């Protein structure tokens, strides 16, 4: 085997190994990024909320988080098969009705679900706030979700504030954190 060919083969092998290590590192970084975000919110920091642009449940339009800048956003991650999601759905709809005229928007993000089941859920609980479909589970990784439901609060500057709820959220917690996201005690 010529010296040139030997060097070329060695270079190829090193390149392939480097590529695999880079892929592994990228995956680890992405996984940790979401977990780190949850940790920062829990520590009382206000990190920027990962932006998303997702289709609504009917596939007739999409909503991006950046388009909601200037409003306080309640992000609720849910699925129709999840029991606690059923418990909190009426609370979220009630909060939406209480706050919708004061620059607050509740956004439901449906994950790991069938469209038909999600629509049935929305009809059953009479949800009127925007519900988006995250088919690829993009927000799951970026927000470091651990399960469903989870509820996060985004302030008017697009930063995550207040508490982060794993499990059902009640009216009192919703109101308190919405006020915080609005930056007022109104």
């Amino acid at each position, binding site marked *: 085997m010529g010296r040139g*060919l030997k060097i070329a083969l060695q270079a190829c092998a090193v390149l392939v190994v480097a590529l695999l290590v880079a892929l592994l590192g990228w995956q680890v970084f992405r996984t940790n990024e979401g977990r780190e975000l949850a940790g920062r919110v829990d520590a009382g920091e206000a990190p920027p909320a990962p932006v998303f642009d997702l289709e609504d449940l009917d596939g007739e339009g999409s909503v991006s988080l950046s388009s909601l800048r200037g409003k306080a956003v309640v992000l609720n991650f849910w699925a129709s098969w999840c029991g606690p999601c059923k418990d909190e759905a009426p609370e979220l709809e009630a909060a939406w009705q209480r706050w919708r005229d004061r620059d607050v928007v509740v956004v439901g993000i449906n994950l*790991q679900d069938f469209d038909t089941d999600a629509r049935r859920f929305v009809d059953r609980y009479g949800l009127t706030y925007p519900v988006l479909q995250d088919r690829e589970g993009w927000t799951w990784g970026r927000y470091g979700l651990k399960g469903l439901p989870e509820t996060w609060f985004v302030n008017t500057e697009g930063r995550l504030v207040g508490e982060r709820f794993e499990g059902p959220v009640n009216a009192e917690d919703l109101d308190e954190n919405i006020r915080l996201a609005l930056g007022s005690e109104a």
Partner: protein
Amino acid sequence: MRPLLFLAVLVALAAAGTAAASEEQPTLAELEQEVICPTCHTTLALSSSPIADRMRAFISGRIAAGDTKSEIKSKLVDQFGESVLAAPPKKGFNLLVWLLPLVAVAVAAVVIGLLARRWSRARAPAAADPSSNGRAALDPDLERRLDEELARFDA
């Protein structure tokens, strides 16, 4: 040789027939092995989560409706993304996952072949020397000294 070839053709035809039948008339058990539960990241066969139960019900419904395996998988991908498939589809970027191992095996075979050729060439000159009777030729200086020693011994 011919019976072996005939047997290989028979096995290939049988496998192709089974694959075609599986595509046209899939079973829940097959698809449970080929579909991933999005919450627990194991195959449906290993999962008892609520969404896995729901997916099993969906698959059974589609089988009863006469869907092929590809159609059922396609509908699941529409709902949950490609990560719902246990094995990536053989198209686009995913094709790399299928091709890279084959390329790696081919490259390894070529490298081993080249090395084997190199080693055999290194030994060939010794074997090819007719004066050495199949053995490595002696150093001329050593041969001269040996002849001298033998001559002294004979004398």
